[in-house]
């Protein structure tokens, strides 16, 4: 009986110590992780819309509560043509980017990820308020660095400045995209469709 009690005590101690250790490490690292994720997002958004470093931006995500992450103070401008939706479009994350100084809308970013033969790829599609594509950026990829550079240079840069029109869907057949690029194209097409759906409402 005594040995059983000792066993239970030892294991309880191990469990408590490991739980406590994880708790402490989480306490230390959680703010850094949060900051990392925020910085990464803002970095991508700045890259897409070519925002200078000193200009601060805020964003509103369809997945999070608006009061949760970065609060938007004041009212949005009335003449914004599309509504901020409660739910995300299917398979995409819709994010609205605002200038922090005057709360004016800079653009919309759609994020989607898909698997291709080279692994998983995450793509950000930024659309300006005038309806042109600001930029298409690969945000995460398990592909090799050179391969991503090749895609970005040869395949994604033609999208820049084009009108976000559903007819652009024809675009990929024109370039003869392989199925690897196809997963990137799919996301761009989905984003354009979601944008047009949103702006019609």
């Amino acid at each position, binding site marked *: 009986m005594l040995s059983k009690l000792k066993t239970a005590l030892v294991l309880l101690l191990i469990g408590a110590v490991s739980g406590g250790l*994880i708790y402490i490490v989480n306490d230390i690292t959680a703010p850094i992780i949060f900051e990392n994720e925020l910085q990464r997002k803002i970095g991508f958004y700045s890259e897409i819309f070519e925002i200078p470093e000193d200009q601060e931006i805020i964003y509103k995500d369809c997945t999070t509560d608006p009061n949760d992450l970065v609060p938007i103070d004041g009212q949005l401008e009335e003449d914004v043509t599309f509504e901020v939706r409660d739910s995300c479009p299917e398979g995409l994350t819709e994010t609205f980017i605002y200038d922090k100084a005057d709360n004016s809308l800079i653009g919309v970013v759609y994020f989607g990820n898909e698997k*291709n*033969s080279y692994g998983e790829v995450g793509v950000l599609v930024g659309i300006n308020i005038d309806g042109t594509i600001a930029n298409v950026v690969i945000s995460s990829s398990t592909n090799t660095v050179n391969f991503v550079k090749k895609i970005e240079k040869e395949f994604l840069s033609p999208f820049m400045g084009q009108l976000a029109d559903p007819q652009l869907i024809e675009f990929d057949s024109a370039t003869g995209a392989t*199925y690897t690029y196809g997963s990137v194209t799919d996301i761009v097409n989905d984003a354009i469709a979601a944008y047009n759906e949103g702006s019609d409402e």
Partner: protein
Amino acid sequence: MTWTVFAVAIFNAMLINNVILKQFLGICPFLGVSKKSSSAVGMGAAVTFVMVIASFVTYAIYSYVLVPYGIEYISTIAFILVIASLVQLVEMILKKFSKPLYKSLGIYLPLITTNCAILGVAEGNISNIYTNYGSSGMWLAVFTALGTALGFTLIIFAFSSVREKLESSNVPDAWKGVPISLVVAGIMSIAFLGLQGIL
């Protein structure tokens, strides 16, 4: 979600993103237990059984316990403990109630705790399905697990058949055993790469 979503999930997990040839999970049993077809099938059945139950339980724990209380960061330790205790429970039940079943697939259960395919699928469900569907993606997770496990069984069985042939073939000394098996797996992987364009 309609049934097509589930069908696509199974097809995708089984053939296109095959757990062994594409995601590199469960390489250990793939090389270790694939010398005979019968043991390969036994291992596959055991993995299928545990993987489906484990992803159901881990997904439920994640979406109903860990997320609501904001303690997602303990998911790794929680998942491995859940899977390990599940394996013990299944093994005990098989031992007690069904000896023939224990003889055919129960003997592989002790190997499954350290099989990275089970934990890998549980973690993958969280990162792929939970972020998109939330707690309503439970059945999608279960079907993905089913597809993954079927893909595992298919590949380990096919590989064991190839390996039985390899045993009797004349291979150079340097390539005997694991190296030639890995090259064979690579060729199988090329074949499965061709399925990529389907979906």
